[in-house]
Protein backbone atom coordinates (compact mmCIF):
# COMPACT_ATOMS: atom_id res chain seq x y z
CA UNK A 1 0.00 0.00 0.00
CA UNK A 2 2.79 2.43 0.91
CA UNK A 3 4.64 1.54 -2.27
CA UNK A 4 1.47 2.10 -4.27
CA UNK A 5 0.88 5.45 -2.60
CA UNK A 6 4.41 6.59 -3.37
CA UNK A 7 3.95 5.64 -7.02
CA UNK A 8 0.67 7.53 -7.23
CA UNK A 9 2.19 10.64 -5.66
CA UNK A 10 5.12 10.49 -8.07
CA UNK A 11 2.62 10.22 -10.93
CA UNK A 12 0.76 13.24 -9.61
CA UNK A 13 3.95 15.31 -9.44
CA UNK A 14 4.95 14.36 -12.99
CA UNK A 15 1.49 15.31 -14.28
CA UNK A 16 1.72 18.66 -12.51
CA UNK A 17 5.15 19.33 -14.03
CA UNK A 18 3.81 18.50 -17.50
CA UNK A 19 0.80 20.72 -16.85
CA UNK A 20 3.07 23.63 -15.91
CA UNK A 21 5.02 23.23 -19.19
CA UNK A 22 1.79 23.13 -21.18
CA UNK A 23 0.33 26.19 -19.44
CA UNK A 24 3.56 28.11 -20.03
CA UNK A 25 3.73 27.02 -23.68
CA UNK A 26 0.11 27.95 -24.30
CA UNK A 27 0.64 31.44 -22.93
CA UNK A 28 3.71 31.92 -25.15
CA UNK A 29 1.81 30.88 -28.27
CA UNK A 30 -0.90 33.47 -27.67
CA UNK A 31 -0.49 36.60 -29.74
CA UNK A 32 -0.31 40.06 -28.18
CA UNK A 33 2.53 41.64 -26.22
CA UNK A 34 1.66 42.55 -22.64
CA UNK A 35 4.14 45.43 -22.64
CA UNK A 36 2.56 46.89 -25.76
CA UNK A 37 -0.88 46.44 -24.24
CA UNK A 38 0.16 48.36 -21.12
CA UNK A 39 1.64 51.29 -22.99
CA UNK A 40 -0.84 51.47 -25.87
CA UNK A 41 -0.34 51.05 -29.61
CA UNK A 42 1.61 54.30 -30.15
CA UNK A 43 4.25 53.74 -27.47
CA UNK A 44 7.82 54.61 -28.42
CA UNK A 45 9.94 51.54 -29.28
CA UNK A 46 12.63 52.37 -26.70
CA UNK A 47 10.11 52.74 -23.86
CA UNK A 48 8.66 49.42 -24.96
CA UNK A 49 12.12 47.86 -24.83
CA UNK A 50 12.70 49.11 -21.31
CA UNK A 51 9.36 47.86 -20.07
CA UNK A 52 9.85 44.49 -21.73
CA UNK A 53 13.21 44.25 -20.01
CA UNK A 54 11.69 45.23 -16.68
CA UNK A 55 9.00 42.57 -17.04
CA UNK A 56 11.61 40.02 -18.00
CA UNK A 57 9.95 39.35 -21.33
CA UNK A 58 13.17 39.69 -23.33
CA UNK A 59 14.78 36.68 -21.73
CA UNK A 60 14.92 33.26 -23.47
CA UNK A 61 11.85 31.09 -22.93
CA UNK A 62 13.73 28.41 -21.06
CA UNK A 63 14.99 30.91 -18.48
CA UNK A 64 11.54 32.45 -18.14
CA UNK A 65 10.04 29.00 -17.58
CA UNK A 66 12.55 27.77 -15.00
CA UNK A 67 12.26 31.09 -13.20
CA UNK A 68 8.47 30.84 -13.09
CA UNK A 69 8.31 27.13 -12.23
CA UNK A 70 10.96 27.56 -9.54
CA UNK A 71 8.90 30.35 -8.04
CA UNK A 72 5.79 28.16 -8.10
CA UNK A 73 7.56 25.56 -5.98
CA UNK A 74 8.27 28.21 -3.36
CA UNK A 75 4.75 29.60 -3.46
CA UNK A 76 5.88 32.67 -5.43
CA UNK A 77 3.59 33.11 -8.44
CA UNK A 78 5.19 36.36 -9.61
CA UNK A 79 3.80 39.88 -9.76
CA UNK A 80 0.57 40.83 -11.50
CA UNK A 81 1.22 43.17 -14.43
CA UNK A 82 -1.96 45.16 -13.86
CA UNK A 83 -2.18 45.35 -10.09
CA UNK A 84 1.55 45.22 -9.24
CA UNK A 85 0.86 42.92 -6.31
CA UNK A 86 1.87 39.26 -5.88
CA UNK A 87 -0.38 36.93 -7.89
CA UNK A 88 -0.73 34.64 -4.90
CA UNK A 89 -2.35 37.37 -2.82
CA UNK A 90 -4.84 38.08 -5.63
CA UNK A 91 -5.75 34.40 -5.71
CA UNK A 92 -5.98 34.18 -1.92
CA UNK A 93 -8.26 37.22 -1.97
CA UNK A 94 -10.69 35.45 -4.30
CA UNK A 95 -10.72 32.07 -2.57
CA UNK A 96 -12.97 33.20 0.34
CA UNK A 97 -15.68 33.71 -2.32
CA UNK A 98 -15.04 30.77 -4.63
CA UNK A 99 -14.31 28.12 -2.03
CA UNK A 100 -17.41 28.60 0.21
CA UNK A 101 -19.55 28.89 -2.91
CA UNK A 102 -18.17 25.63 -4.33
CA UNK A 103 -18.54 23.81 -1.00
CA UNK A 104 -22.05 25.14 -0.34
CA UNK A 105 -23.32 24.18 -3.78
CA UNK A 106 -21.67 20.75 -3.57
CA UNK A 107 -23.28 20.04 -0.19
CA UNK A 108 -26.66 21.22 -1.47
CA UNK A 109 -26.25 19.12 -4.62
CA UNK A 110 -25.36 16.08 -2.50
CA UNK A 111 -28.37 16.43 -0.23
CA UNK A 112 -30.82 16.92 -3.11
CA UNK A 113 -29.21 14.54 -5.60
CA UNK A 114 -28.43 11.59 -3.37
CA UNK A 115 -31.80 11.56 -1.60
CA UNK A 116 -33.79 11.87 -4.83
CA UNK A 117 -31.60 9.20 -6.44
CA UNK A 118 -32.24 6.80 -3.53
CA UNK A 119 -35.98 7.52 -3.58
CA UNK A 120 -36.14 6.96 -7.33
CA UNK A 121 -34.30 3.64 -7.04
CA UNK A 122 -36.29 2.46 -4.02
CA UNK A 123 -39.60 3.28 -5.71
CA UNK A 124 -38.32 2.07 -9.08
CA UNK A 125 -40.98 2.09 -11.79
CA UNK A 126 -43.50 4.08 -9.74
CA UNK A 127 -44.87 7.48 -10.70
CA UNK A 128 -42.45 9.02 -8.20
CA UNK A 129 -39.49 7.49 -10.04
CA UNK A 130 -40.76 8.79 -13.37
CA UNK A 131 -41.42 12.23 -11.90
CA UNK A 132 -37.89 12.41 -10.49
CA UNK A 133 -36.37 11.26 -13.78
CA UNK A 134 -38.36 13.79 -15.79
CA UNK A 135 -37.39 16.55 -13.37
CA UNK A 136 -33.72 15.58 -13.62
CA UNK A 137 -33.76 15.70 -17.39
CA UNK A 138 -35.54 19.03 -17.41
CA UNK A 139 -33.10 20.60 -14.96
CA UNK A 140 -30.16 19.30 -16.99
CA UNK A 141 -31.56 21.02 -20.05
CA UNK A 142 -31.59 24.45 -18.38
CA UNK A 143 -28.58 26.73 -18.76
CA UNK A 144 -27.49 27.46 -15.19
CA UNK A 145 -27.11 31.19 -15.85
CA UNK A 146 -30.74 31.30 -16.99
CA UNK A 147 -31.75 29.48 -13.84
CA UNK A 148 -29.77 32.13 -11.97
CA UNK A 149 -31.60 34.94 -13.78
CA UNK A 150 -34.97 33.42 -12.93
CA UNK A 151 -33.91 33.02 -9.27
CA UNK A 152 -32.86 36.67 -9.20
CA UNK A 153 -36.14 37.73 -10.76
CA UNK A 154 -38.26 35.80 -8.28
CA UNK A 155 -36.29 35.95 -5.03
CA UNK A 156 -34.39 39.20 -5.39
CA UNK A 157 -36.40 41.54 -7.60
CA UNK A 158 -39.95 40.43 -6.83
CA UNK A 159 -39.71 39.21 -3.24
CA UNK A 160 -36.51 40.89 -1.96
CA UNK A 161 -35.49 37.81 0.01
CA UNK A 162 -31.89 37.79 -1.16
CA UNK A 163 -29.56 40.35 -2.77
CA UNK A 164 -29.50 40.28 -6.58
CA UNK A 165 -25.73 40.32 -6.76
CA UNK A 166 -22.42 41.59 -5.44
CA UNK A 167 -20.46 40.45 -2.44
CA UNK A 168 -19.17 42.80 0.22
CA UNK A 169 -16.84 40.40 2.04
CA UNK A 170 -17.29 38.28 5.11
CA UNK A 171 -17.49 41.13 7.63
CA UNK A 172 -21.29 40.96 7.78
CA UNK A 173 -21.35 37.38 9.13
CA UNK A 174 -24.63 35.63 8.29
CA UNK A 175 -25.67 38.67 6.27
CA UNK A 176 -22.74 38.17 3.88
CA UNK A 177 -23.65 34.54 3.40
CA UNK A 178 -27.05 35.61 2.07
CA UNK A 179 -25.33 36.94 -1.05
CA UNK A 180 -24.13 33.43 -1.85
CA UNK A 181 -27.48 31.65 -1.44
CA UNK A 182 -28.89 32.25 -4.93
CA UNK A 183 -25.61 31.53 -6.76
CA UNK A 184 -25.20 28.34 -4.73
CA UNK A 185 -28.69 27.16 -5.66
CA UNK A 186 -28.18 27.98 -9.34
CA UNK A 187 -24.93 26.01 -9.33
CA UNK A 188 -26.26 23.14 -7.24
CA UNK A 189 -29.45 22.22 -9.10
CA UNK A 190 -27.84 20.89 -12.32
CA UNK A 191 -25.17 19.08 -10.27
CA UNK A 192 -27.90 17.54 -8.10
CA UNK A 193 -29.63 16.28 -11.23
CA UNK A 194 -26.45 14.56 -12.40
CA UNK A 195 -25.87 13.03 -8.95
CA UNK A 196 -29.45 11.80 -8.76
CA UNK A 197 -29.06 9.99 -12.07
CA UNK A 198 -25.76 8.38 -11.11
CA UNK A 199 -27.06 7.35 -7.68
CA UNK A 200 -30.23 5.79 -9.12
CA UNK A 201 -28.36 3.92 -11.84
CA UNK A 202 -25.70 2.63 -9.44
CA UNK A 203 -28.34 1.35 -7.01
CA UNK A 204 -30.37 -0.32 -9.75
CA UNK A 205 -27.29 -2.11 -11.03
CA UNK A 206 -26.97 -3.95 -7.73
CA UNK A 207 -30.61 -5.09 -7.63
CA UNK A 208 -29.84 -8.42 -9.30
CA UNK A 209 -26.66 -9.03 -7.31
CA UNK A 210 -26.72 -12.16 -5.10
CA UNK A 211 -26.20 -10.30 -1.83
CA UNK A 212 -29.17 -8.02 -2.47
CA UNK A 213 -31.31 -10.99 -3.50
CA UNK A 214 -30.19 -12.77 -0.32
CA UNK A 215 -31.24 -9.79 1.77
CA UNK A 216 -34.60 -9.70 0.03
CA UNK A 217 -35.13 -13.42 0.57
CA UNK A 218 -34.53 -12.90 4.26
CA UNK A 219 -37.63 -10.76 4.17
CA UNK A 220 -36.24 -7.23 3.74
CA UNK A 221 -38.33 -4.92 1.62
CA UNK A 222 -36.89 -3.65 -1.63
CA UNK A 223 -36.18 -0.22 -0.17
CA UNK A 224 -34.63 -1.62 3.01
CA UNK A 225 -32.40 -4.01 1.07
CA UNK A 226 -31.22 -1.20 -1.22
CA UNK A 227 -30.49 1.24 1.56
CA UNK A 228 -28.90 -1.17 4.05
CA UNK A 229 -26.95 -3.38 1.66
CA UNK A 230 -26.66 -1.86 -1.78
CA UNK A 231 -26.02 1.76 -0.85
CA UNK A 232 -22.42 1.38 0.42
CA UNK A 233 -21.45 -0.43 -2.80
CA UNK A 234 -23.32 1.95 -5.04
CA UNK A 235 -21.46 4.87 -3.54
CA UNK A 236 -18.27 4.47 -5.58
CA UNK A 237 -19.53 5.89 -8.89
CA UNK A 238 -21.22 8.70 -6.96
CA UNK A 239 -17.91 9.51 -5.29
CA UNK A 240 -16.02 9.83 -8.56
CA UNK A 241 -18.72 12.11 -9.97
CA UNK A 242 -18.56 14.22 -6.80
CA UNK A 243 -14.83 14.70 -7.30
CA UNK A 244 -15.33 15.95 -10.85
CA UNK A 245 -18.12 18.24 -9.73
CA UNK A 246 -16.07 19.90 -7.02
CA UNK A 247 -13.35 20.78 -9.49
CA UNK A 248 -15.95 22.04 -11.91
CA UNK A 249 -17.60 24.17 -9.26
CA UNK A 250 -14.31 25.74 -8.25
CA UNK A 251 -13.28 26.63 -11.78
CA UNK A 252 -16.35 26.59 -13.94
CA UNK A 253 -18.33 29.22 -12.15
CA UNK A 254 -17.16 32.10 -14.34
CA UNK A 255 -20.61 32.53 -15.88
CA UNK A 256 -22.49 32.41 -12.57
CA UNK A 257 -19.97 34.83 -11.05
CA UNK A 258 -20.79 37.14 -13.94
CA UNK A 259 -24.54 36.93 -13.34
CA UNK A 260 -24.15 37.80 -9.65
CA UNK A 261 -21.12 40.10 -9.94
CA UNK A 262 -19.17 37.96 -7.48
CA UNK A 263 -15.44 38.62 -7.13
CA UNK A 264 -14.38 34.98 -7.45
CA UNK A 265 -11.56 33.07 -9.11
CA UNK A 266 -13.43 32.82 -12.39
CA UNK A 267 -13.78 36.57 -12.74
CA UNK A 268 -10.12 37.00 -11.83
CA UNK A 269 -9.10 34.81 -14.78
CA UNK A 270 -11.65 36.44 -17.05
CA UNK A 271 -10.32 39.92 -16.33
CA UNK A 272 -6.70 38.80 -16.40
CA UNK A 273 -7.13 37.44 -19.92
CA UNK A 274 -8.71 40.65 -21.10
CA UNK A 275 -5.83 42.66 -19.64
CA UNK A 276 -3.18 40.16 -20.82
CA UNK A 277 -2.01 39.83 -17.24
CA UNK A 278 0.13 36.76 -17.97
CA UNK A 279 1.35 35.97 -14.43
CA UNK A 280 -2.23 36.00 -13.14
CA UNK A 281 -3.49 33.80 -16.00
CA UNK A 282 -0.68 31.29 -15.52
CA UNK A 283 -0.89 31.29 -11.72
CA UNK A 284 -4.63 30.88 -11.46
CA UNK A 285 -4.71 28.27 -14.24
CA UNK A 286 -2.11 26.30 -12.30
CA UNK A 287 -4.14 26.58 -9.09
CA UNK A 288 -7.25 25.32 -10.87
CA UNK A 289 -5.46 22.45 -12.60
CA UNK A 290 -3.73 21.48 -9.37
CA UNK A 291 -7.02 21.45 -7.50
CA UNK A 292 -8.63 19.26 -10.18
CA UNK A 293 -5.74 16.81 -10.03
CA UNK A 294 -5.49 16.72 -6.26
CA UNK A 295 -9.23 16.20 -5.89
CA UNK A 296 -9.23 13.34 -8.39
CA UNK A 297 -6.17 11.90 -6.63
CA UNK A 298 -7.92 11.97 -3.26
CA UNK A 299 -11.10 10.53 -4.76
CA UNK A 300 -9.10 7.65 -6.24
CA UNK A 301 -7.49 7.01 -2.88
CA UNK A 302 -10.84 6.96 -1.07
CA UNK A 303 -12.26 4.67 -3.73
CA UNK A 304 -9.35 2.29 -3.29
CA UNK A 305 -9.78 2.26 0.44
CA UNK A 306 -13.47 1.50 0.08
CA UNK A 307 -13.11 -1.13 -2.62
CA UNK A 308 -10.25 -3.64 -2.23
CA UNK A 309 -10.78 -4.86 -5.81
CA UNK A 310 -9.58 -1.52 -7.20
CA UNK A 311 -6.39 -1.81 -5.17
CA UNK A 312 -5.48 -5.14 -6.68
CA UNK A 313 -6.18 -4.06 -10.25
CA UNK A 314 -3.86 -1.10 -10.18
Amino acid sequence: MAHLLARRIAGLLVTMAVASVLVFAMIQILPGDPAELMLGADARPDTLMVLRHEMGLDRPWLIQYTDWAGGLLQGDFGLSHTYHVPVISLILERLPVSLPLAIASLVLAMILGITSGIIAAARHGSWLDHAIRLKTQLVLALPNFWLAMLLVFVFAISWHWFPAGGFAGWNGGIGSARALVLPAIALALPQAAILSRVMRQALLETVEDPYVLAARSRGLSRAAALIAHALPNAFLPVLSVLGLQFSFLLAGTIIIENVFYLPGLGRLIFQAVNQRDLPVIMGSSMVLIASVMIVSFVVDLIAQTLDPRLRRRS
Partner: protein
Amino acid sequence: MRVKLLQGVGLRVGTCLIGGLVLMAVMALSPWVNDPTLIHVASKLQAPSFEHWLGTDHLGRDELGLVMRGAVASLGVAVAAVGIGAGIGVPLGLMAAAREGWLRQVIMRASDFIFAFPALVIAILLHDTLGAGMLNAMVAIGIFNIPVFARTAFGSAQPIWTLDFIRAARLSGKGTYRIAVVHVLPLILPAMIVQVTIQLGLGILAEAGLSYVGLGVTPPIPSWGRMLNEAQTLIAIAPRLALVPGIAIALAVFGFTLLGDALSLTIDPRRRERQP
Protein backbone atom coordinates in the same frame (compact mmCIF):
# COMPACT_ATOMS: atom_id res chain seq x y z
CA MET B 1 -44.71 -2.92 -21.74
CA ARG B 2 -45.04 0.32 -19.87
CA VAL B 3 -41.38 1.05 -20.41
CA LYS B 4 -41.68 0.40 -24.12
CA LEU B 5 -44.48 2.89 -24.19
CA LEU B 6 -42.47 5.47 -22.26
CA GLN B 7 -39.47 4.87 -24.46
CA GLY B 8 -41.68 5.43 -27.48
CA VAL B 9 -42.99 8.66 -25.99
CA GLY B 10 -39.47 9.88 -25.25
CA LEU B 11 -38.34 9.06 -28.76
CA ARG B 12 -41.35 10.76 -30.30
CA VAL B 13 -41.19 13.90 -28.16
CA GLY B 14 -37.44 14.14 -28.69
CA THR B 15 -37.77 13.76 -32.45
CA CYS B 16 -40.55 16.37 -32.53
CA LEU B 17 -38.49 18.88 -30.53
CA ILE B 18 -35.39 18.42 -32.67
CA GLY B 19 -37.49 18.45 -35.84
CA GLY B 20 -39.06 21.70 -34.68
CA LEU B 21 -35.64 23.16 -33.96
CA VAL B 22 -34.32 22.30 -37.42
CA LEU B 23 -37.51 23.57 -39.03
CA MET B 24 -37.17 26.86 -37.14
CA ALA B 25 -33.60 27.26 -38.34
CA VAL B 26 -34.53 26.51 -41.95
CA MET B 27 -37.52 28.84 -41.89
CA ALA B 28 -35.45 31.62 -40.34
CA LEU B 29 -33.02 31.41 -43.25
CA SER B 30 -35.71 31.33 -45.92
CA PRO B 31 -36.14 34.56 -47.89
CA TRP B 32 -39.84 34.86 -46.98
CA VAL B 33 -39.16 35.66 -43.38
CA ASN B 34 -38.43 39.30 -42.53
CA ASP B 35 -34.89 40.00 -41.37
CA PRO B 36 -35.20 40.07 -37.56
CA THR B 37 -31.99 42.04 -37.12
CA LEU B 38 -33.53 45.26 -38.44
CA ILE B 39 -33.79 47.86 -35.71
CA HIS B 40 -36.99 49.90 -35.16
CA VAL B 41 -36.39 51.80 -31.97
CA ALA B 42 -39.81 53.45 -32.29
CA SER B 43 -41.55 50.12 -31.68
CA LYS B 44 -39.32 48.95 -28.82
CA LEU B 45 -40.46 46.69 -25.97
CA GLN B 46 -43.92 46.06 -27.39
CA ALA B 47 -46.07 43.38 -25.82
CA PRO B 48 -47.03 40.37 -27.96
CA SER B 49 -49.46 41.36 -30.73
CA PHE B 50 -50.75 40.00 -33.99
CA GLU B 51 -47.89 41.64 -35.84
CA HIS B 52 -45.20 40.56 -33.36
CA TRP B 53 -46.32 37.25 -31.84
CA LEU B 54 -43.74 37.37 -29.06
CA GLY B 55 -43.47 41.15 -28.90
CA THR B 56 -40.32 43.19 -29.59
CA ASP B 57 -37.04 43.68 -27.72
CA HIS B 58 -35.36 46.89 -26.49
CA LEU B 59 -34.31 47.78 -30.06
CA GLY B 60 -37.71 47.03 -31.56
CA ARG B 61 -36.60 43.78 -33.17
CA ASP B 62 -39.17 41.01 -33.54
CA GLU B 63 -38.57 38.54 -30.71
CA LEU B 64 -39.99 35.54 -32.59
CA GLY B 65 -37.73 36.23 -35.58
CA LEU B 66 -34.71 36.57 -33.28
CA VAL B 67 -35.45 33.29 -31.52
CA MET B 68 -35.86 31.52 -34.84
CA ARG B 69 -32.57 32.94 -36.10
CA GLY B 70 -30.97 31.99 -32.80
CA ALA B 71 -31.68 28.35 -33.64
CA VAL B 72 -29.33 28.69 -36.63
CA ALA B 73 -26.40 29.83 -34.50
CA SER B 74 -27.12 27.23 -31.82
CA LEU B 75 -27.36 24.29 -34.20
CA GLY B 76 -24.46 25.50 -36.33
CA VAL B 77 -22.07 25.85 -33.41
CA ALA B 78 -23.19 22.59 -31.77
CA VAL B 79 -22.90 20.55 -34.97
CA ALA B 80 -19.49 21.98 -35.87
CA ALA B 81 -18.17 21.50 -32.34
CA VAL B 82 -19.36 17.91 -32.12
CA GLY B 83 -17.94 17.32 -35.59
CA ILE B 84 -14.52 18.53 -34.42
CA GLY B 85 -14.77 16.52 -31.21
CA ALA B 86 -15.91 13.26 -32.80
CA GLY B 87 -13.72 13.65 -35.88
CA ILE B 88 -10.55 13.88 -33.78
CA GLY B 89 -11.62 12.13 -30.59
CA VAL B 90 -13.02 8.87 -31.99
CA PRO B 91 -9.90 8.02 -34.06
CA LEU B 92 -7.73 8.83 -31.04
CA GLY B 93 -9.83 6.62 -28.77
CA LEU B 94 -9.76 3.80 -31.33
CA MET B 95 -6.00 4.10 -31.60
CA ALA B 96 -5.56 4.09 -27.82
CA ALA B 97 -7.66 0.92 -27.56
CA ALA B 98 -5.77 -0.78 -30.40
CA ARG B 99 -2.27 -0.05 -29.16
CA GLU B 100 -1.16 -0.89 -25.70
CA GLY B 101 1.85 0.94 -24.31
CA TRP B 102 3.10 4.48 -24.65
CA LEU B 103 0.73 5.64 -27.39
CA ARG B 104 -2.29 4.76 -25.24
CA GLN B 105 -0.70 6.46 -22.23
CA VAL B 106 0.02 9.64 -24.18
CA ILE B 107 -3.49 9.84 -25.65
CA MET B 108 -5.30 9.13 -22.40
CA ARG B 109 -3.10 11.46 -20.29
CA ALA B 110 -3.49 14.25 -22.85
CA SER B 111 -7.27 13.87 -22.79
CA ASP B 112 -7.19 13.92 -18.98
CA PHE B 113 -5.29 17.19 -19.17
CA ILE B 114 -7.73 18.87 -21.55
CA PHE B 115 -10.53 17.55 -19.39
CA ALA B 116 -8.98 19.08 -16.29
CA PHE B 117 -8.66 22.43 -18.02
CA PRO B 118 -11.83 24.44 -17.54
CA ALA B 119 -13.64 24.70 -20.88
CA LEU B 120 -14.27 28.38 -20.39
CA VAL B 121 -10.61 29.12 -19.89
CA ILE B 122 -9.94 27.45 -23.25
CA ALA B 123 -12.61 29.67 -24.76
CA ILE B 124 -11.17 32.84 -23.20
CA LEU B 125 -7.64 32.00 -24.31
CA LEU B 126 -8.79 31.18 -27.84
CA HIS B 127 -10.81 34.36 -27.88
CA ASP B 128 -7.55 36.27 -28.12
CA THR B 129 -6.37 34.27 -31.09
CA LEU B 130 -9.58 33.86 -33.04
CA GLY B 131 -11.50 36.86 -31.78
CA ALA B 132 -15.06 36.59 -30.54
CA GLY B 133 -17.48 34.97 -32.91
CA MET B 134 -18.98 31.72 -34.04
CA LEU B 135 -15.60 30.25 -34.97
CA ASN B 136 -14.26 30.79 -31.46
CA ALA B 137 -17.28 29.07 -29.95
CA MET B 138 -17.05 26.15 -32.38
CA VAL B 139 -13.34 25.55 -31.78
CA ALA B 140 -13.50 25.99 -27.99
CA ILE B 141 -16.46 23.65 -27.56
CA GLY B 142 -14.92 21.32 -30.15
CA ILE B 143 -11.65 21.06 -28.22
CA PHE B 144 -13.58 20.24 -25.08
CA ASN B 145 -15.42 17.50 -26.98
CA ILE B 146 -12.24 15.75 -28.15
CA PRO B 147 -11.42 14.03 -24.81
CA VAL B 148 -15.09 13.17 -24.30
CA PHE B 149 -15.20 11.24 -27.56
CA ALA B 150 -11.71 9.80 -27.07
CA ARG B 151 -12.76 8.40 -23.71
CA THR B 152 -16.08 6.92 -24.84
CA ALA B 153 -14.50 5.44 -27.98
CA PHE B 154 -11.69 3.97 -25.88
CA GLY B 155 -14.10 2.64 -23.28
CA SER B 156 -16.33 0.88 -25.76
CA ALA B 157 -13.52 -0.30 -28.07
CA GLN B 158 -11.23 -1.77 -25.42
CA PRO B 159 -13.39 -4.79 -24.43
CA ILE B 160 -13.99 -5.65 -28.11
CA TRP B 161 -10.28 -6.32 -28.60
CA THR B 162 -10.48 -9.43 -26.38
CA LEU B 163 -13.21 -11.07 -28.48
CA ASP B 164 -12.56 -14.19 -30.54
CA PHE B 165 -13.36 -12.79 -33.94
CA ILE B 166 -10.69 -10.13 -33.49
CA ARG B 167 -8.16 -12.87 -32.84
CA ALA B 168 -9.41 -14.64 -35.94
CA ALA B 169 -8.88 -11.46 -37.92
CA ARG B 170 -5.37 -11.16 -36.54
CA LEU B 171 -4.64 -14.78 -37.47
CA SER B 172 -5.83 -14.09 -40.99
CA GLY B 173 -3.08 -11.51 -41.20
CA LYS B 174 -4.92 -8.20 -40.90
CA GLY B 175 -3.00 -5.29 -39.39
CA THR B 176 -3.95 -3.58 -36.14
CA TYR B 177 -5.32 -0.39 -37.68
CA ARG B 178 -7.20 -2.27 -40.36
CA ILE B 179 -8.91 -4.39 -37.69
CA ALA B 180 -9.70 -1.22 -35.74
CA VAL B 181 -11.42 0.36 -38.72
CA VAL B 182 -13.06 -2.71 -40.28
CA HIS B 183 -14.08 -4.69 -37.20
CA VAL B 184 -14.03 -2.47 -34.11
CA LEU B 185 -15.39 0.81 -35.47
CA PRO B 186 -18.74 -0.63 -36.67
CA LEU B 187 -19.33 -2.14 -33.23
CA ILE B 188 -18.72 1.10 -31.33
CA LEU B 189 -20.66 3.23 -33.82
CA PRO B 190 -24.01 2.92 -31.98
CA ALA B 191 -22.43 4.10 -28.73
CA MET B 192 -20.82 6.99 -30.60
CA ILE B 193 -24.16 8.02 -32.12
CA VAL B 194 -25.68 8.16 -28.65
CA GLN B 195 -22.73 10.26 -27.48
CA VAL B 196 -23.13 12.60 -30.46
CA THR B 197 -26.77 13.19 -29.52
CA ILE B 198 -25.87 13.93 -25.91
CA GLN B 199 -22.98 16.22 -26.88
CA LEU B 200 -25.15 18.15 -29.34
CA GLY B 201 -27.43 19.06 -26.45
CA LEU B 202 -24.46 20.04 -24.27
CA GLY B 203 -23.03 21.98 -27.22
CA ILE B 204 -26.17 24.10 -27.42
CA LEU B 205 -25.88 24.80 -23.68
CA ALA B 206 -22.21 25.69 -24.05
CA GLU B 207 -22.84 28.00 -27.01
CA ALA B 208 -25.50 29.81 -25.01
CA GLY B 209 -23.07 30.21 -22.10
CA LEU B 210 -20.22 31.51 -24.26
CA SER B 211 -22.44 33.96 -26.15
CA TYR B 212 -23.90 35.07 -22.83
CA VAL B 213 -20.50 36.18 -21.52
CA GLY B 214 -19.61 37.68 -24.90
CA LEU B 215 -17.17 35.04 -26.12
CA GLY B 216 -19.42 33.42 -28.68
CA VAL B 217 -21.67 34.67 -31.43
CA THR B 218 -21.27 38.41 -31.94
CA PRO B 219 -23.86 41.02 -32.91
CA PRO B 220 -25.75 41.41 -35.15
CA ILE B 221 -26.11 37.63 -35.52
CA PRO B 222 -28.94 36.62 -33.17
CA SER B 223 -28.04 34.06 -30.52
CA TRP B 224 -30.04 32.77 -27.57
CA GLY B 225 -27.21 33.30 -25.14
CA ARG B 226 -26.71 36.93 -26.10
CA MET B 227 -30.45 37.57 -26.09
CA LEU B 228 -30.44 36.41 -22.46
CA ASN B 229 -27.54 38.73 -21.71
CA GLU B 230 -29.42 41.69 -23.17
CA ALA B 231 -32.60 40.68 -21.36
CA GLN B 232 -30.89 40.54 -17.99
CA THR B 233 -30.91 44.27 -17.35
CA LEU B 234 -34.51 44.49 -18.58
CA ILE B 235 -35.79 41.61 -16.50
CA ALA B 236 -37.84 43.82 -14.22
CA ILE B 237 -39.52 45.64 -17.15
CA ALA B 238 -39.87 42.83 -19.68
CA PRO B 239 -39.39 39.38 -18.13
CA ARG B 240 -40.80 37.95 -21.38
CA LEU B 241 -37.47 38.72 -23.11
CA ALA B 242 -35.63 36.59 -20.56
CA LEU B 243 -38.15 33.76 -20.68
CA VAL B 244 -38.42 33.14 -24.43
CA PRO B 245 -34.75 32.40 -25.31
CA GLY B 246 -34.31 30.39 -22.09
CA ILE B 247 -37.28 28.18 -22.93
CA ALA B 248 -35.94 27.76 -26.47
CA ILE B 249 -32.58 26.56 -25.12
CA ALA B 250 -34.21 24.26 -22.58
CA LEU B 251 -36.52 22.64 -25.16
CA ALA B 252 -33.69 22.11 -27.65
CA VAL B 253 -31.40 20.53 -25.05
CA PHE B 254 -34.27 18.51 -23.59
CA GLY B 255 -35.03 17.19 -27.09
CA PHE B 256 -31.48 15.97 -27.58
CA THR B 257 -31.44 14.38 -24.10
CA LEU B 258 -34.68 12.49 -24.75
CA LEU B 259 -33.42 11.36 -28.14
CA GLY B 260 -30.10 10.22 -26.68
CA ASP B 261 -31.82 8.29 -23.89
CA ALA B 262 -34.28 6.60 -26.25
CA LEU B 263 -31.49 5.74 -28.70
CA SER B 264 -29.26 4.24 -26.03
CA LEU B 265 -32.13 2.07 -24.79
CA THR B 266 -32.80 0.86 -28.33
CA ILE B 267 -29.15 0.21 -29.06
CA ASP B 268 -28.16 -1.47 -25.81
CA PRO B 269 -30.59 -4.34 -25.09
CA ARG B 270 -28.91 -4.98 -21.74
CA ARG B 271 -30.01 -1.59 -20.49
CA ARG B 272 -33.50 -2.27 -21.78
CA GLU B 273 -33.76 -5.40 -19.64
CA ARG B 274 -32.51 -3.55 -16.62
CA GLN B 275 -35.15 -0.89 -16.96
CA PRO B 276 -38.39 -2.91 -16.43
